[in-house]
């Protein structure tokens, strides 16, 4: 489902990623860990084309990304199959919680407004926020906002979910509620890649752990071996 082969990326003559290779089969959860500035987030952002890379190649959910600039059409097709959850949630502040979740299915997948909202309601119920459908994102707690962001990404029914430090901006109580949602998701067999500092999250949700240091893979293995 995910293959990264010899990925190399420099930014202003500094190597950010060097010869990174990894693979994630369908239904696996890969956790990428490592110190700050080790290139974890950059690697994740390469997986859905938010960043380009200099050499190597990526295959995600059947879409092949080559080095250099990506075509718009390819990116749009890939991103329909690859959801992403950001550290800072990035909920659309002008839309209600439900509209946040229903926007992409309507605009990108072409669902009717009613179908998109129905799908949105199901997902909000699934992350325990059905009661907040009409609220503005800014009125929610950080943990609630991150759960909405997860529901929003799931609404596109992605084959792969990417998480960028999903609990780093949250206090422990709020982290826990987000963690439960992600663990539930892992149980359903959702293929995921998560970048995290949070060892509790990695231990409970991941099946494979990759440790990145200074842009290189230091070691990788099962959760039992690594953590």
């Amino acid at each position: 489902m995910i293959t990264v082969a010899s990925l190399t990326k420099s930014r202003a003559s500094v190597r950010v990623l060097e010869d990174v290779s990894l693979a994630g089969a369908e239904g696996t959860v890969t956790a990428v860990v490592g110190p700050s500035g080790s290139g974890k987030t950059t690697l994740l952002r390469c997986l859905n084309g938010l960043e380009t890379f200099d050499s190597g190649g990526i295959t995600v959910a059947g879409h092949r990304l080559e080095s250099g600039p990506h075509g718009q059409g390819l990116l749009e097709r890939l991103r329909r199959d690859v959801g992403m959850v950001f550290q800072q949630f990035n909920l659309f502040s002008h839309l209600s919680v439900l509209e946040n979740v229903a926007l992409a299915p309507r605009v990108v997948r072409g669902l009717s407004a009613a179908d998109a909202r129905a799908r949105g309601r199901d997902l909000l119920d699934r992350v325990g926020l059905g009661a907040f459908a009409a609220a503005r994102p800014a009125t929610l707690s950080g943990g609630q906002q991150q759960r909405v962001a997860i529901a929003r990404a799931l609404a596109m029914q992605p084959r792969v979910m990417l998480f960028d430090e999903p609990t780093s901006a949250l206090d422990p109580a709020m982290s826990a509620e987000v963690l439960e949602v992600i663990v539930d998701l892992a149980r359903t067999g959702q293929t995921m890649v998560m970048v995290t500092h949070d060892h509790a999250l990695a231990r409970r949700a991941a099946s494979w752990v990759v440790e990145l240091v200074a842009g290189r893979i230091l070691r990788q293995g099962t959760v039992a071996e690594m953590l």
Partner: protein
Amino acid sequence: MKSRRVWLFAAAVFFSLAGAAAAAELDDVLARGELIWAADQEGGGPHVFPDPVDPRRLTGFEVELAALIASELGVKPRFQQGQWDRLPLLLGRTADCVINGIEWTPERQRDYRCSRPYFAYALQLLTRLDTPLDAFGTLAAMGPRGRWRVGVLTGSAAETTMQSRTDLEVDVVGYDGTIDSLEQVASGVLDAAVMDDCIFNFYADRFSRLRTVDRPFAGGFYTILTARNTPRLSAAIDEVVGRLIADGRLKSLYDRWDLAGRQQMLLLRDAAEIPVARRKSIGELCRDTLPLLLRAAGMTVLLSCVSFPLAVCIGLSVAVGRLYGPPAVRPVLAGYVEVLRGTPLMLQLYAIFFLLPKIGIALPALAAAILGLALNYSAYEAEVYRAGLRAVPLGQFEAALALGLSKWQALRHVLVPQAVRIVMPPVTSDFIALFKDTSVCSAITVIELTKRYSVLALSTGRIVELAVVTALLYLCMSWPLALLSRWFERRLEGAEPPPPAA
């Protein structure tokens, strides 16, 4: 243009107090050694105009007349420029007298001191060679394009005379200069123009496609205006004019300017006294002017409410193009903004209204005004929306892209709606600014509230009363706008700031 209305109001207040203020009497003029005379060089020949040989110098028969009068008084003449229909407002402030084809009317008799007549004018109808307008009487029936569009100089006798002729199927269009209306007849925007015959005779060579229709149909006399509280200056000017007529110097001046001196002298000899107009009561004043002011206020609303949404649409498109469009168009759009923002609205309106017809695009005045306002304000809105779009956190754009939205979908559904909310307060205040800038449109013959006020104030002499009524009308219209902008601000303050960018 806000300053223009403030200026007008200040002028109005000042003028009303001028009775008490010290206007320059004869003694002051003599002590100063200068007679300051006001005229509008934009009014054109043969009265007062820049010398074609040396445009820094003014020439014209009234320039020479002013020099003669000043020298008879034993002082030097000094020219003071002003807009023609507002020249009388300069009396007692920056000018001692007005010498500029000012027609002798009952209202002016009442509001100023009028000298004995120094010139007899006649009103002449003009048209293009190819129009079916063969006689003055033709105006009584509809023309091939409906009502005849006839240009006149704003505030002139031509305007009042044509407006009083309810028997004619004409729309009278006021211009700030006489040459403007000649240009517009030549380019086909107007069907005809009415002006003093001496003006057309002077410019006939330049406008070879124009012709006169019938003989002049009305006429009157030019007078030199002075302030009401300068009786001795007025009497001295009267005496000088009398002397110039008696000793033949005025006749030879007119002959030099090809103005039929002999005939002028005969007409001046026959000049009858013009009666002094009665002062209207406040009730009469309101009854006569309010409907006109209200209609003009409607024009102000129409101009703003049509042009501003256009400006916002164009401005938003330009902003999006500059930030997200193809690299090749970005400098073009930047140029668009700088050109429109860096040149005066007045000039842009002139270009649209007076220059486009020369390349075959003759827009009606209202369309030209709306287009001009929309284009000018689109440059400002483009900058406001560009700032608004940049203020939306990058994370919002990335989140939209990560969901599979295309760049344009992300703009349409995520970035633009947020930018619109962010810039609501400045955009609302731009709307109020445009609302007031509509007064510039009078330069291209659109009569909105400020123009109507200025015309009525000068024709009735009730500058202060009408200023109050006009100001109230503006307030009635801008108050709801102010409420709207405050409502938007409260709404935005109520909402928490968007989450910071990743």
